[in-house]
């Protein structure tokens, strides 16, 4: 298992390197110049060219790439053009929001997705099941930003129960209570993903119920609830674990939109805003960190899958 893990980790390196070239190329091919964005409307092209030179943006792109890669390998992603602070600090600033948002969302997904999915499967075909499956499919079809806008309208503006937007750090005044700022966003983000998990849990439980060892357990006269929990639910967990990888990817993608709607200072907003500002070092840094994280999580999911399900062999 250890050797296998190591081998898989090693295989990530060329992919990561290729991804870094791709990111760098994409980012630098985007028309526009951070110097022009910084200086604003009244700047003349000569002003912009002068600042561009001062910032070293007029060097050939491959030179810039190798300089950047050299630093990146030592963990230094450069300095943000816009904030004039190290990119790592800028990312770290957004990470708190993003991580907390992801954790809260996962909690929603689990406490909504698994029980409803299990309930739906155990009462397969009943009206409960039909309602749950239909509802899940409906929520999976809602654009997150649309849901977010209406949640703000209802719960923040009309009812005034939750803050409408923003997120002061939990280290600020208010402490953990500040998590209430993330309740609506996490719910928005959780809705389509919980819906996917509901359907997944339901489907995999139905599959398992048809399998031999479950029939045997039932035939042995075990209590149906015990069968449901011990045999069926455990198998459902496997599929949930497998779904974790793509759920995480969806979280990152959809978080970009959700963070925009709720003005959250997370990594997703950072990407969007940095693209608008042409803050090359930040875009490169953030995307690379996300790609890294994504690949590692997928690897962990694969390993966990292998560990949970003895039928999968390590090839």
């Amino acid at each position: 298992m250890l050797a296998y893990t190591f081998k898989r980790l090693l295989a990530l390196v060329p992919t990561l390197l290729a991804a870094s070239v791709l990111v760098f190329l994409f980012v630098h091919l985007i028309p526009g110049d951070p110097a022009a964005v910084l200086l604003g409307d009244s700047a003349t092209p000569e002003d912009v060219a002068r600042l561009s030179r001062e910032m070293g943006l007029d060097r050939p792109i491959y030179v810039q790439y190798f300089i950047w890669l050299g630093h990146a390998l030592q963990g230094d992603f450069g300095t943000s053009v816009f904030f004039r602070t190290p990119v790592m600090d800028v990312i770290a600033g957004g990470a708190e929001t993003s991580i907390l948002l992801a954790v809260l969302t996962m909690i929603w997904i689990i406490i909504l997705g698994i029980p409803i999915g299990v309930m739906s499967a155990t009462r397969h075909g009943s009206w409960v099941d039909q309602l749950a499956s239909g509802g899940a499919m409906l929520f999976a079809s809602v654009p997150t930003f649309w849901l977010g806008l209406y949640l703000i309208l209802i719960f923040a503006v009309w009812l005034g129960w939750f803050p409408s937007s923003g997120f002061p750090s939990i280290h600020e005044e208010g402490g953990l209570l500040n998590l209430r700022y993330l309740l609506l966003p996490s719910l928005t983000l959780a809705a389509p993903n919980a819906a996917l998990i509901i359907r997944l849990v339901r489907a995999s439980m139905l599959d398992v119920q048809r399998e031999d060892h479950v029939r045997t357990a039932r035939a042995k006269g075990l209590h149906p609830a015990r069968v449901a929990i011990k045999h069926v639910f455990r198998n459902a967990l496997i599929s949930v674990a497998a779904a974790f990888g793509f759920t995480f990817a969806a979280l990152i993608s959809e978080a970009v939109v959700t963070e925009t709607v709720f003005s959250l200072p997370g990594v997703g907003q950072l990407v969007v805003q940095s693209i608008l500002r042409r803050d090359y070092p930040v875009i490169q840094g953030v995307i690379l960190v996300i790609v890294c994280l994504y690949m590692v999580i997928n690897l962990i999911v694969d390993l966990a899958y292998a560990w949970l399900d003895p039928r999968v062999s390590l090839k």
Partner: protein
Amino acid sequence: MKLKTWLKSAVMAGALLACTGSAMADGMLRYATVGEPPSLDQQVITSDLATTIAHHMFEGLYTFNSSNAPVPLLAAGDETSADGKTITIKLREGVSFHNGEPMTSADVLASLKRWGEFGSRGALLFDNVESIEATGDHEITIKLKAPFGPWKNLMAFINGGPAIYPASVLAGAGKEPIAPESYIGTGPYKFSKWEPNRYVELVRYDGYVSPEGEPDGYGGKRVAEFDTLHFIPVADVGTRVAGVRAGDYDYAESIPGDLFADLDADASVKTIVNGSPLFGLVFMNSKEGPLKDNFALRRAIQTAIDKVPALQVSIGPDQLWRANGSFMPKGNVWYTEAGAENFSKGDAEAAKAMAKEAGYNGEPIKFMVSTNYPFHYDSAIVYTKQLAQAGFNIDLQVYDWATLIDKRGKADQWDMFFTHHGFVPDPILISVMNDSYPGWWATPEKAALKAKFTASSDPAEREKIWAEIQALIYEQVPTMKTGDVYTYNIASPKLKGLADATLIWPAFWNVSK
């Protein structure tokens, strides 16, 4: 069912959380901005957002009173020699920087020099400066090549202007904005920290020495009533509005016109209309393309457009816009109707005839606009329709702002582009007056008038020359003004001391909660 009761209790718990946490310190002002400022270095950055934040911590030698006339801020007074070529400025004594050091003429000298060489509006003044030196611990003497009328206005305009920094932070400073750790000024608030994507924090500067006199515009006494100012980027308009209504922010800027009626009637928010309008500009390419020097064709385009529907669509309620052809608003000393009869003809038939006479044969005209500013985009859509009706072949190209400002620097990529201009106290600061601003309007007629305009320091004469320049703009059409837009902000009714209208940028000294 179980799930239902669970959900219910979750909602209740959430509601409880929401209630207990809302007691916030009153010593903090939370200002929802449209985004993040590019940098707060006032000398090189011209973003209005940057100035909104930075003018609480940086000060210049002069500032503006409520009638947009320059008054001393860090200066104590000045004298101009009889020939108009030597200016001696006395500095206020006892003023200290946020790092505790006293402000002296060495700091002012270093600041003016850096601004003159690298500042975004510095060259306007310094192209005319022979020499500048410190003639005492608190005295600066500027020698001009020729008398230069607008010098005090340029010094008082802090946006892209001569903010005074300590000489120590300016060593080696160039075009690149200074780093946040060097944000050291003399203002009532000092820089505390900048959490990217979260907020910019300013805190009260206890060692602040205010100028004397009744507050008047930005002049007079300044008192920092808040402990802390937070400028929080909230990109989404709807969220900014909801946030002020819900009490999460005390102040929010840049609210769309269509919400004005509702918000004005809403007791939970106060609307504050900006006193100085901004205006849209459609620049034409004087360097390349079909519009290069075909003034007749440009006049045909100008004739085809009716500015009113564009203002209705892009801004909304009548109170918030004015179809005003003068580059300076009514009531301002620079207001003039010269040439303005051609401002908004909206005559498709006449335009068609004029275009034909100008030799136009349906060549495509590339019109660039950005979606980052909805009012640009909305207006451009209306203009494109009107121009099409007058037989023009408009190729509307929609970009994000960063792409647009990149492309407009390349003369072969465009024929017209849309931008807007903030209020400026002196017409010399309007971008079309700058020969190297994209569009590159630099005809001999302009050069002659501009030379006369800056050489004179007699206000009445300068106003007369400006009227001639404006008439020339309507004749050669280097740019088309689209009308005055009065933006507005919203504030919590709890804020005390807010003026009913903002002069240029909202200011929060003398304001409390």
